[in-house]
Protein backbone atom coordinates (compact mmCIF):
# COMPACT_ATOMS: atom_id res chain seq x y z
CA UNK A 1 0.00 0.00 0.00
CA UNK A 2 1.60 3.27 -1.08
CA UNK A 3 1.33 6.56 0.77
CA UNK A 4 -1.50 7.80 -1.47
CA UNK A 5 -3.65 4.78 -0.66
CA UNK A 6 -2.95 5.21 3.02
CA UNK A 7 -4.06 8.86 2.86
CA UNK A 8 -7.16 7.86 0.86
CA UNK A 9 -7.99 5.30 3.50
CA UNK A 10 -7.35 7.76 6.29
CA UNK A 11 -9.56 10.45 4.84
CA UNK A 12 -12.23 8.16 3.36
CA UNK A 13 -14.89 10.03 5.33
CA UNK A 14 -13.85 13.40 3.87
CA UNK A 15 -13.75 12.02 0.32
CA UNK A 16 -17.20 10.49 0.87
CA UNK A 17 -18.65 13.98 1.36
CA UNK A 18 -17.73 14.83 -2.25
CA UNK A 19 -19.84 12.01 -3.67
CA UNK A 20 -23.61 12.21 -4.41
CA UNK A 21 -24.31 10.15 -1.28
CA UNK A 22 -22.09 12.54 0.64
CA UNK A 23 -24.12 15.54 -0.51
CA UNK A 24 -27.28 13.82 0.67
CA UNK A 25 -25.54 13.29 3.99
CA UNK A 26 -24.86 17.03 4.23
CA UNK A 27 -28.56 17.74 3.59
CA UNK A 28 -29.46 15.34 6.39
CA UNK A 29 -27.00 17.10 8.71
CA UNK A 30 -28.80 20.37 7.96
CA UNK A 31 -32.22 18.78 8.69
CA UNK A 32 -30.85 17.32 11.91
CA UNK A 33 -29.45 20.75 12.76
CA UNK A 34 -32.88 22.32 12.29
CA UNK A 35 -34.42 19.77 14.68
CA UNK A 36 -31.73 20.45 17.28
CA UNK A 37 -32.18 24.22 16.76
CA UNK A 38 -35.97 23.93 17.29
CA UNK A 39 -35.34 21.90 20.44
CA UNK A 40 -32.78 24.21 22.00
CA UNK A 41 -33.68 27.67 20.71
CA UNK A 42 -37.46 27.36 20.34
CA UNK A 43 -38.00 24.85 23.14
CA UNK A 44 -40.29 22.71 20.92
CA UNK A 45 -40.46 19.27 22.63
CA UNK A 46 -36.68 19.36 23.26
CA UNK A 47 -36.74 15.98 25.00
CA UNK A 48 -37.73 14.39 21.69
CA UNK A 49 -36.44 16.64 18.94
CA UNK A 50 -32.91 16.79 20.30
CA UNK A 51 -32.37 12.99 20.47
CA UNK A 52 -34.08 12.61 17.07
CA UNK A 53 -31.81 15.26 15.55
CA UNK A 54 -28.68 13.75 17.07
CA UNK A 55 -29.79 10.24 16.07
CA UNK A 56 -30.14 11.52 12.50
CA UNK A 57 -26.57 12.86 12.58
CA UNK A 58 -25.26 9.52 13.84
CA UNK A 59 -27.26 7.57 11.26
CA UNK A 60 -25.86 9.64 8.38
CA UNK A 61 -22.17 9.51 9.26
CA UNK A 62 -20.07 8.16 6.38
CA UNK A 63 -20.04 4.36 6.34
CA UNK A 64 -16.96 2.54 7.54
CA UNK A 65 -15.55 0.27 4.83
CA UNK A 66 -14.61 -3.19 6.00
CA UNK A 67 -10.97 -3.73 4.98
CA UNK A 68 -11.41 -7.47 4.55
CA UNK A 69 -14.71 -7.72 2.67
CA UNK A 70 -14.73 -4.22 1.14
CA UNK A 71 -18.40 -3.90 2.09
CA UNK A 72 -19.90 -0.93 3.91
CA UNK A 73 -20.07 -1.70 7.62
CA UNK A 74 -21.55 1.36 9.26
CA UNK A 75 -20.38 1.92 12.77
CA UNK A 76 -23.70 2.91 14.34
CA UNK A 77 -26.14 1.23 11.95
CA UNK A 78 -25.54 -2.10 10.22
CA UNK A 79 -26.81 -5.30 11.74
CA UNK A 80 -24.84 -4.88 14.97
CA UNK A 81 -24.71 -1.09 15.22
CA UNK A 82 -26.10 0.24 18.48
CA UNK A 83 -28.84 2.26 16.76
CA UNK A 84 -30.05 -0.83 14.91
CA UNK A 85 -30.07 -2.77 18.16
CA UNK A 86 -32.09 0.05 19.77
CA UNK A 87 -34.55 0.16 16.87
CA UNK A 88 -35.10 -3.60 16.90
CA UNK A 89 -35.38 -3.75 20.67
CA UNK A 90 -37.77 -0.86 21.09
CA UNK A 91 -39.64 0.04 17.93
CA UNK A 92 -39.77 -3.09 15.78
CA UNK A 93 -41.34 -5.01 18.65
CA UNK A 94 -43.50 -2.04 19.80
CA UNK A 95 -41.87 -1.97 23.25
CA UNK A 96 -41.05 1.77 23.44
CA UNK A 97 -44.61 2.97 22.64
CA UNK A 98 -45.93 0.63 25.34
CA UNK A 99 -43.41 1.81 27.95
CA UNK A 100 -44.05 5.46 27.06
CA UNK A 101 -47.76 4.88 27.59
CA UNK A 102 -47.16 3.47 31.08
CA UNK A 103 -45.30 6.70 31.84
CA UNK A 104 -47.98 8.90 30.23
CA UNK A 105 -50.71 7.03 32.13
CA UNK A 106 -48.91 7.75 35.39
CA UNK A 107 -48.88 11.46 34.48
CA UNK A 108 -52.56 11.75 33.54
CA UNK A 109 -55.11 12.94 36.06
CA UNK A 110 -58.55 11.81 34.92
CA UNK A 111 -60.40 13.61 37.72
CA UNK A 112 -61.38 16.68 35.60
CA UNK A 113 -62.91 14.28 33.07
CA UNK A 114 -64.70 12.29 35.79
CA UNK A 115 -66.29 15.54 36.96
CA UNK A 116 -67.32 16.69 33.50
CA UNK A 117 -67.67 13.58 31.32
CA UNK A 118 -69.42 15.39 28.46
CA UNK A 119 -65.95 16.58 27.40
CA UNK A 120 -65.15 13.00 26.36
CA UNK A 121 -66.95 13.47 23.04
CA UNK A 122 -64.36 16.02 21.94
CA UNK A 123 -61.83 13.20 22.19
CA UNK A 124 -63.88 11.43 19.51
CA UNK A 125 -64.70 14.46 17.33
CA UNK A 126 -61.07 15.52 17.15
CA UNK A 127 -60.19 12.21 15.49
CA UNK A 128 -62.03 13.42 12.38
CA UNK A 129 -58.73 14.55 10.85
CA UNK A 130 -57.36 11.00 11.01
CA UNK A 131 -60.10 9.65 8.79
CA UNK A 132 -60.23 12.70 6.48
CA UNK A 133 -56.47 12.34 5.94
CA UNK A 134 -56.82 8.61 5.46
CA UNK A 135 -59.30 9.22 2.62
CA UNK A 136 -57.19 11.98 1.07
CA UNK A 137 -54.11 9.75 1.26
CA UNK A 138 -55.94 7.00 -0.63
CA UNK A 139 -56.44 9.50 -3.46
CA UNK A 140 -52.99 11.12 -3.40
CA UNK A 141 -50.65 8.19 -2.76
CA UNK A 142 -51.18 6.47 -6.16
CA UNK A 143 -50.82 9.84 -7.92
CA UNK A 144 -47.73 11.18 -6.14
CA UNK A 145 -46.05 7.81 -5.68
CA UNK A 146 -46.69 5.96 -8.96
CA UNK A 147 -44.64 3.00 -7.75
CA UNK A 148 -47.50 2.18 -5.33
CA UNK A 149 -50.19 2.19 -8.04
CA UNK A 150 -51.98 -1.13 -8.15
CA UNK A 151 -50.66 -2.19 -4.75
CA UNK A 152 -53.88 -1.77 -2.75
CA UNK A 153 -52.33 -3.28 0.33
CA UNK A 154 -49.44 -0.79 0.48
CA UNK A 155 -51.73 2.17 -0.30
CA UNK A 156 -54.19 1.23 2.45
CA UNK A 157 -51.49 0.53 5.01
CA UNK A 158 -49.57 3.70 4.21
CA UNK A 159 -52.76 5.80 4.24
CA UNK A 160 -53.61 4.36 7.67
CA UNK A 161 -50.25 5.28 9.14
CA UNK A 162 -50.34 8.76 7.60
CA UNK A 163 -53.87 9.35 8.90
CA UNK A 164 -52.85 8.31 12.41
CA UNK A 165 -50.23 11.10 12.44
CA UNK A 166 -53.30 13.27 13.09
CA UNK A 167 -53.81 11.46 16.38
CA UNK A 168 -51.08 13.81 17.64
CA UNK A 169 -49.88 10.81 19.50
CA UNK A 170 -46.39 9.56 18.63
CA UNK A 171 -46.56 6.12 20.27
CA UNK A 172 -49.88 5.27 18.56
CA UNK A 173 -48.48 6.40 15.20
CA UNK A 174 -45.41 4.19 15.65
CA UNK A 175 -47.64 1.33 16.78
CA UNK A 176 -49.82 1.50 13.66
CA UNK A 177 -46.89 2.00 11.24
CA UNK A 178 -45.05 -0.89 12.81
CA UNK A 179 -48.12 -3.12 12.85
CA UNK A 180 -48.50 -2.61 9.10
CA UNK A 181 -44.80 -3.32 8.55
CA UNK A 182 -44.00 0.08 7.03
CA UNK A 183 -40.32 0.03 7.95
CA UNK A 184 -39.30 1.98 4.82
CA UNK A 185 -41.67 4.81 5.74
CA UNK A 186 -41.00 4.82 9.49
CA UNK A 187 -38.62 7.81 9.33
CA UNK A 188 -40.93 10.40 7.74
CA UNK A 189 -43.98 9.09 9.61
CA UNK A 190 -42.36 9.28 13.03
CA UNK A 191 -40.63 12.58 12.32
CA UNK A 192 -43.92 14.09 11.11
CA UNK A 193 -45.78 12.77 14.17
CA UNK A 194 -43.28 14.04 16.70
CA UNK A 195 -42.35 17.32 15.05
CA UNK A 196 -45.98 18.37 14.49
CA UNK A 197 -46.77 17.36 18.06
CA UNK A 198 -44.11 19.78 19.19
CA UNK A 199 -45.53 22.42 16.84
CA UNK A 200 -49.04 22.32 18.36
CA UNK A 201 -48.59 25.90 19.71
CA UNK A 202 -47.90 27.03 16.15
CA UNK A 203 -50.43 24.90 14.24
CA UNK A 204 -53.55 25.09 16.41
CA UNK A 205 -54.07 28.84 17.13
CA UNK A 206 -54.52 30.01 13.50
CA UNK A 207 -56.96 27.17 12.77
CA UNK A 208 -58.98 27.96 15.90
CA UNK A 209 -59.01 31.69 15.14
CA UNK A 210 -60.17 31.03 11.58
CA UNK A 211 -63.14 28.99 12.80
CA UNK A 212 -64.29 31.02 15.81
CA UNK A 213 -65.36 34.58 16.55
CA UNK A 214 -63.84 36.65 19.36
CA UNK A 215 -67.16 36.38 21.19
CA UNK A 216 -67.03 32.58 21.02
CA UNK A 217 -63.44 32.53 22.24
CA UNK A 218 -64.49 34.58 25.26
CA UNK A 219 -67.20 32.16 26.40
CA UNK A 220 -66.72 31.29 30.04
CA UNK A 221 -67.50 27.84 31.36
CA UNK A 222 -68.49 26.70 34.83
CA UNK A 223 -66.31 24.17 36.56
CA UNK A 224 -67.50 21.81 39.27
CA UNK A 225 -64.95 22.04 42.07
CA UNK A 226 -66.21 18.89 43.81
CA UNK A 227 -63.46 16.25 43.74
CA UNK A 228 -63.91 12.83 42.12
CA UNK A 229 -64.04 9.90 44.51
CA UNK A 230 -60.93 7.77 44.90
CA UNK A 231 -62.95 4.63 44.17
CA UNK A 232 -64.04 6.10 40.83
CA UNK A 233 -60.46 7.08 39.98
CA UNK A 234 -59.32 3.51 40.68
CA UNK A 235 -62.21 1.85 38.87
CA UNK A 236 -61.94 4.03 35.77
CA UNK A 237 -58.64 2.63 34.37
CA UNK A 238 -59.76 -0.93 35.07
CA UNK A 239 -63.15 -0.52 33.37
CA UNK A 240 -61.71 1.39 30.39
CA UNK A 241 -59.15 -1.39 29.83
CA UNK A 242 -61.82 -4.09 29.91
CA UNK A 243 -64.32 -2.19 27.71
CA UNK A 244 -61.82 -1.17 25.02
CA UNK A 245 -60.10 -4.55 25.18
CA UNK A 246 -63.40 -6.28 24.44
CA UNK A 247 -64.66 -3.90 21.75
CA UNK A 248 -61.39 -2.94 20.04
CA UNK A 249 -58.91 -5.69 21.00
CA UNK A 250 -56.19 -4.17 18.80
CA UNK A 251 -56.09 -1.15 21.09
CA UNK A 252 -55.55 -3.31 24.19
CA UNK A 253 -51.73 -3.06 24.37
CA UNK A 254 -51.80 0.75 24.28
CA UNK A 255 -54.93 1.29 26.37
CA UNK A 256 -53.78 -1.39 28.80
CA UNK A 257 -50.36 0.16 29.34
CA UNK A 258 -51.80 3.68 29.61
CA UNK A 259 -54.36 2.55 32.16
CA UNK A 260 -51.84 0.44 34.07
CA UNK A 261 -49.72 3.56 34.50
CA UNK A 262 -52.79 5.46 35.63
CA UNK A 263 -53.76 2.78 38.13
CA UNK A 264 -50.26 2.93 39.64
CA UNK A 265 -50.83 6.68 40.07
CA UNK A 266 -54.31 6.51 41.52
CA UNK A 267 -54.11 3.43 43.75
CA UNK A 268 -52.37 5.45 46.45
CA UNK A 269 -50.10 2.64 47.64
CA UNK A 270 -47.46 2.72 44.88
CA UNK A 271 -46.24 6.26 45.06
CA UNK A 272 -42.62 5.22 44.45
CA UNK A 273 -43.55 3.29 41.29
CA UNK A 274 -45.79 6.13 40.14
CA UNK A 275 -42.95 8.64 40.49
CA UNK A 276 -40.55 6.25 38.75
CA UNK A 277 -42.96 5.84 35.83
CA UNK A 278 -43.49 9.60 35.57
CA UNK A 279 -39.82 10.49 35.76
CA UNK A 280 -37.13 7.85 35.31
CA UNK A 281 -39.10 5.56 32.98
CA UNK A 282 -40.43 8.45 30.89
CA UNK A 283 -36.99 10.06 30.62
CA UNK A 284 -35.11 6.88 29.83
CA UNK A 285 -37.52 5.67 27.17
CA UNK A 286 -37.76 9.16 25.65
CA UNK A 287 -33.97 9.27 25.17
CA UNK A 288 -33.87 5.82 23.58
CA UNK A 289 -37.03 6.39 21.51
CA UNK A 290 -35.72 9.67 20.14
CA UNK A 291 -32.38 8.15 19.15
CA UNK A 292 -34.09 5.13 17.59
CA UNK A 293 -36.40 7.36 15.54
CA UNK A 294 -33.47 9.53 14.48
CA UNK A 295 -31.67 6.38 13.34
CA UNK A 296 -34.37 5.80 10.72
CA UNK A 297 -33.57 9.15 9.08
CA UNK A 298 -30.92 7.75 6.75
CA UNK A 299 -30.59 9.96 3.64
CA UNK A 300 -31.64 7.28 1.18
CA UNK A 301 -34.85 6.60 3.15
CA UNK A 302 -35.62 10.21 3.96
CA UNK A 303 -34.73 12.38 0.96
CA UNK A 304 -37.59 11.08 -1.14
CA UNK A 305 -40.82 12.41 -2.56
CA UNK A 306 -42.88 10.32 -0.13
CA UNK A 307 -41.33 12.24 2.79
CA UNK A 308 -42.80 15.48 1.44
CA UNK A 309 -46.16 13.77 0.87
CA UNK A 310 -46.21 12.30 4.38
CA UNK A 311 -45.17 15.60 5.99
CA UNK A 312 -47.83 17.49 4.01
CA UNK A 313 -50.60 15.03 4.79
CA UNK A 314 -49.53 14.89 8.43
CA UNK A 315 -49.99 18.66 8.68
CA UNK A 316 -53.40 18.33 6.99
CA UNK A 317 -54.37 15.71 9.60
CA UNK A 318 -53.41 18.01 12.49
CA UNK A 319 -55.34 20.91 10.98
CA UNK A 320 -58.47 18.84 10.38
CA UNK A 321 -58.32 17.24 13.82
CA UNK A 322 -58.30 20.71 15.34
CA UNK A 323 -61.10 21.84 13.03
CA UNK A 324 -63.14 18.69 13.82
CA UNK A 325 -63.04 19.41 17.55
CA UNK A 326 -63.88 23.12 17.18
CA UNK A 327 -66.74 22.53 14.73
CA UNK A 328 -68.18 19.77 16.91
CA UNK A 329 -68.25 22.16 19.88
CA UNK A 330 -69.99 24.79 17.74
CA UNK A 331 -72.50 22.16 16.64
CA UNK A 332 -73.23 21.19 20.26
CA UNK A 333 -73.69 24.86 21.14
CA UNK A 334 -76.69 24.97 18.79
CA UNK A 335 -78.56 22.79 21.30
CA UNK A 336 -77.03 23.76 24.65
CA UNK A 337 -78.13 26.41 27.09
CA UNK A 338 -74.73 26.54 28.79
CA UNK A 339 -72.46 27.21 25.85
CA UNK A 340 -69.10 25.51 25.44
CA UNK A 341 -66.09 27.58 24.51
CA UNK A 342 -65.42 26.02 21.07
CA UNK A 343 -61.66 26.27 21.61
CA UNK A 344 -62.02 23.42 24.13
CA UNK A 345 -62.97 21.15 21.21
CA UNK A 346 -59.52 21.66 19.71
CA UNK A 347 -57.96 20.18 22.85
CA UNK A 348 -59.58 16.87 21.87
CA UNK A 349 -56.39 15.99 20.00
CA UNK A 350 -54.04 13.83 21.94
CA UNK A 351 -51.03 16.13 22.39
CA UNK A 352 -51.23 16.04 26.18
CA UNK A 353 -50.94 18.44 27.99
CA UNK A 354 -49.61 20.88 25.40
CA UNK A 355 -52.88 21.34 23.55
CA UNK A 356 -54.80 22.14 26.77
CA UNK A 357 -52.17 24.71 27.69
CA UNK A 358 -52.40 26.33 24.26
CA UNK A 359 -56.19 26.62 24.58
CA UNK A 360 -55.96 28.13 28.07
CA UNK A 361 -53.38 30.64 26.84
CA UNK A 362 -55.61 31.62 23.93
CA UNK A 363 -58.59 32.04 26.27
CA UNK A 364 -56.50 34.20 28.59
CA UNK A 365 -55.32 36.34 25.69
CA UNK A 366 -58.96 37.13 24.86
CA UNK A 367 -60.13 37.53 28.46
CA UNK A 368 -57.53 37.55 31.27
CA UNK A 369 -60.10 36.19 33.73
CA UNK A 370 -61.31 33.29 31.62
CA UNK A 371 -60.20 29.95 33.05
CA UNK A 372 -60.98 26.92 30.86
CA UNK A 373 -57.88 24.87 31.62
CA UNK A 374 -59.72 22.07 33.44
CA UNK A 375 -62.25 21.62 30.61
CA UNK A 376 -59.40 21.64 28.10
CA UNK A 377 -57.51 19.04 30.15
CA UNK A 378 -60.69 16.89 30.17
CA UNK A 379 -60.94 17.12 26.38
CA UNK A 380 -57.20 16.52 26.08
CA UNK A 381 -57.15 13.29 28.13
CA UNK A 382 -60.22 12.16 26.18
CA UNK A 383 -58.22 12.78 23.02
CA UNK A 384 -55.55 10.48 24.40
CA UNK A 385 -58.16 7.73 24.75
CA UNK A 386 -59.83 8.61 21.44
CA UNK A 387 -56.59 8.44 19.47
CA UNK A 388 -55.72 5.00 20.82
CA UNK A 389 -59.22 3.72 20.06
CA UNK A 390 -59.00 5.26 16.57
CA UNK A 391 -55.63 3.54 16.05
CA UNK A 392 -57.13 0.22 17.13
CA UNK A 393 -60.15 0.73 14.86
CA UNK A 394 -57.96 1.54 11.85
CA UNK A 395 -55.73 -1.50 12.44
CA UNK A 396 -58.76 -3.77 12.79
CA UNK A 397 -60.73 -2.39 9.82
CA UNK A 398 -57.83 -2.10 7.38
CA UNK A 399 -56.72 -5.57 8.46
CA UNK A 400 -60.19 -6.86 7.56
CA UNK A 401 -60.15 -5.03 4.21
CA UNK A 402 -56.86 -6.73 3.40
CA UNK A 403 -58.04 -10.13 4.58
CA UNK A 404 -55.38 -10.07 7.30
CA UNK A 405 -52.57 -10.44 4.75
CA UNK A 406 -49.89 -7.87 3.84
Amino acid at each position, binding site marked *: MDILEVLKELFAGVLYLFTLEGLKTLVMFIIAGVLIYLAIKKDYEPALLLPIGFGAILANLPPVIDQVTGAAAASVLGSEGFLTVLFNAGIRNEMFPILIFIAVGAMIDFSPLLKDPSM*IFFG*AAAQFGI*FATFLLSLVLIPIVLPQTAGDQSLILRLASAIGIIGAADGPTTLYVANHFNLVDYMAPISVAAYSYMSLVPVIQPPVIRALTSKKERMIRMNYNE*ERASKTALILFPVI*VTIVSGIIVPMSAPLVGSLMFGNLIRECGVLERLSKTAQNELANLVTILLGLAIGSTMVAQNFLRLDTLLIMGLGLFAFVFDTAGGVLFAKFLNLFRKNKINPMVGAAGISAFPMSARVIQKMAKDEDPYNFILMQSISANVSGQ*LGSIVAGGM*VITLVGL*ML*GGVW
Partner: protein
Amino acid sequence: MFGWMSTMSEAAVATPLTALPLMSKGLLTTVIGLLGVFLVLSLFFVTIKLMQGIKPKEKK
Protein backbone atom coordinates in the same frame (compact mmCIF):
# COMPACT_ATOMS: atom_id res chain seq x y z
CA MET B 1 -89.64 -13.00 8.37
CA PHE B 2 -85.87 -12.92 8.44
CA GLY B 3 -85.55 -12.85 4.67
CA TRP B 4 -83.83 -9.46 4.72
CA MET B 5 -81.10 -10.90 6.91
CA SER B 6 -80.34 -13.70 4.49
CA THR B 7 -80.35 -11.21 1.58
CA MET B 8 -77.79 -9.09 3.45
CA SER B 9 -75.59 -12.03 4.30
CA GLU B 10 -75.79 -13.26 0.70
CA ALA B 11 -74.68 -9.81 -0.49
CA ALA B 12 -71.85 -9.85 2.03
CA VAL B 13 -70.71 -13.23 0.77
CA ALA B 14 -71.07 -12.08 -2.85
CA THR B 15 -68.80 -9.06 -2.26
CA PRO B 16 -66.16 -9.89 0.30
CA LEU B 17 -64.43 -6.89 1.85
CA THR B 18 -61.14 -7.77 0.21
CA ALA B 19 -62.73 -7.50 -3.25
CA LEU B 20 -64.12 -3.99 -2.78
CA PRO B 21 -62.60 -1.10 -4.76
CA LEU B 22 -59.97 0.97 -2.91
CA MET B 23 -62.18 3.99 -2.24
CA SER B 24 -65.07 1.82 -1.01
CA LYS B 25 -62.68 0.23 1.46
CA GLY B 26 -61.57 3.70 2.50
CA LEU B 27 -65.10 5.03 2.95
CA LEU B 28 -66.19 1.95 4.88
CA THR B 29 -63.15 2.22 7.17
CA THR B 30 -63.85 5.93 7.70
CA VAL B 31 -67.54 5.56 8.54
CA ILE B 32 -67.19 2.49 10.76
CA GLY B 33 -64.00 3.84 12.31
CA LEU B 34 -65.51 7.19 13.31
CA LEU B 35 -68.69 5.54 14.57
CA GLY B 36 -66.58 3.06 16.51
CA VAL B 37 -64.57 5.80 18.19
CA PHE B 38 -67.80 7.61 19.18
CA LEU B 39 -69.35 4.34 20.39
CA VAL B 40 -66.40 3.37 22.59
CA LEU B 41 -66.08 6.87 24.05
CA SER B 42 -69.85 6.94 24.63
CA LEU B 43 -69.45 3.76 26.67
CA PHE B 44 -66.74 5.50 28.69
CA PHE B 45 -69.16 8.42 29.14
CA VAL B 46 -71.85 6.07 30.51
CA THR B 47 -69.26 4.43 32.75
CA ILE B 48 -68.22 7.80 34.19
CA LYS B 49 -71.85 8.86 34.66
CA LEU B 50 -72.49 5.67 36.62
CA MET B 51 -69.36 6.22 38.67
CA GLN B 52 -70.40 9.75 39.51
CA GLY B 53 -72.87 8.11 41.87
CA ILE B 54 -69.90 7.09 44.02
CA LYS B 55 -69.49 10.04 46.34
CA PRO B 56 -66.12 10.87 47.89
CA LYS B 57 -65.83 10.06 51.59
CA GLU B 58 -66.29 13.10 53.79
CA LYS B 59 -63.22 13.88 55.85
CA LYS B 60 -64.01 14.01 59.55
